[in-house]
């Protein structure tokens, strides 16, 4: 290879406009964010809440967030790693766990705002489309679903979390088109199929097929389930119990963490402005003393 013409010249860098930081990180869709945050000006400082659902490889985060110039404020949050407290220890990122997390967040917010007695929501999860009815005293808590950057396909777990929050009693505008069990041909939601997914029926079905066809794979794949004695038939009752425990006590627990231990510093710590000024004065004093010249009164 001989001389290769440089692709990115100095001129390229001089004219390059850097995208917003969160766009560079690939975390925020600003087009969607503008439309979610924009509040009517004649509503002045009324907060507009977003129901944020983010799924990572091992955790599901559900938050109620309102936007501020200083930074977004989280009103309440629920994580699927809190579900062990309510009796669910395995399968923390499946559709049923997403439903539980959404349910937990919804009940938590309502309890925080002391609306939990008024708005019980849908106590028995049937998979049908359920919207909160406003009572006479207070209007229901309204939030807008914020999916982030995921592809909104039918049966996605964020809609499981949405269903959980809806059944908890939050008012989130939605359509049943993307719930698991909606068939494009009929253009209808099959409540039975959706109910199956909410109670982990799809996991149970897979367990059953594996036990029959590939027992070794069953042993390796569902090892944690087997360790806790969860079988395909108990899954539904397990989730029913988790839902009941969540409704009983959704308050968040403060976790005690020890202060992080101090690590040894390998580089010098940056001096503060006062420290730097003091150092300068010292050095000037030393210089003047060494030179034996006239001490200048102003060391600026």
């Amino acid at each position, binding site marked *: 290879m001989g001389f290769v013409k440089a692709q990115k010249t100095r001129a390229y860098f001089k*004219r390059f406009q850097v995208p917003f930081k969160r766009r560079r990180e690939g975390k925020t869709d600003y087009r969607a964010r503008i439309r979610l*945050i924009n509040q009517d*000006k004649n509503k002045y400082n009324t907060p507009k809440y977003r129901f944020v659902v983010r799924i990572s490889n091992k955790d599901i985060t559900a938050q109620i967030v309102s936007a501020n110039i200083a930074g977004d404020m989280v009103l309440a949050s629920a994580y699927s790693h809190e579900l062990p407290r309510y009796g669910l220890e395995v399968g923390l990122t499946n559709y049923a766990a997403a439903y539980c997390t959404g349910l937990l967040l919804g009940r938590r917010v309502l309890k925080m705002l002391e609306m939990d007695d008024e708005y019980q929501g849908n106590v028995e999860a049937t998979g049908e489309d359920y919207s909160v009815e406003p009572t006479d005293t207070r209007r229901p808590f309204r939030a807008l679903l914020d999916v982030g950057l995921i592809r909104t396909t039918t049966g996605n777990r964020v809609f499981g979390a949405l269903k959980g929050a809806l059944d908890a009693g939050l008012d989130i505008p939605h359509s049943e088109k993307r719930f698991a069990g909606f068939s494009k041909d009929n253009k209808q939601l099959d409540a039975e199929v959706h109910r199956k997914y909410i109670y982990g029926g799809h996991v149970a079905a897979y367990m059953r097929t594996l036990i029959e066809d590939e027992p070794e794979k069953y042993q390796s794949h569902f090892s944690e389930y087997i360790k806790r004695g969860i079988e395909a038939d108990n899954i539904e009752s397990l989730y029913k119990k988790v839902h009941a425990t969540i409704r009983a006590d959704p308050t968040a627990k403060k976790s005690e963490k020890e202060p992080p231990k101090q690590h040894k510093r390998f580089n010098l710590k940056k001096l503060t402005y006062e420290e730097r000024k003091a150092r300068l004065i010292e050095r000037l004093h030393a210089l003047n003393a060494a030179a034996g010249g006239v001490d200048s009164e102003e060391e600026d």
Partner: protein
Amino acid sequence: MPAGHGVRARTRDSFSRPFRKKGYIPLSTYLRTYKIGDHVDVKVNGAVHKGMPHKFYHGRTGRVWNVTKRAIGVEVNKQVGNRIIRKRIHVRVEHVQPSRCTEEFKLRKLKNDQLKAEAKAKGEIISTKRQPEGPKPGFMVEGATLETVTPIPYDVVNDLKGGY
């Protein structure tokens, strides 16, 4: 071809986005709230095409007289012939910035209230009026050496040495 006097005529530069600031506009513009009576600057944001004011109002400052869902009504002074008319325009919030013209006044008001309260507590009378800058105090010039400058007699020979 004639000059053309469309609504956005001659706005090629004033409505264009600044260098390296194109694309999505920062969200704080959408999060600000405006109340009736606030002073605002009208500054067109070329990235948003809806609710733009006419180019005359670009750079004007006015008062808010109306707040709607996505826009603000601003009352701006415009000279028409021999009089000034208070024009009422509606502008989307992307083309509006909160004005700092009253900031100094508001701060001074707060400080004066505080000073007056303190003086009242102590029982003394103070004036919070602003005074214009007076004449500077007198001073003695120090470290001055006198240098007498006198003209030197014209020396024909030396001065014509260069060119002639």
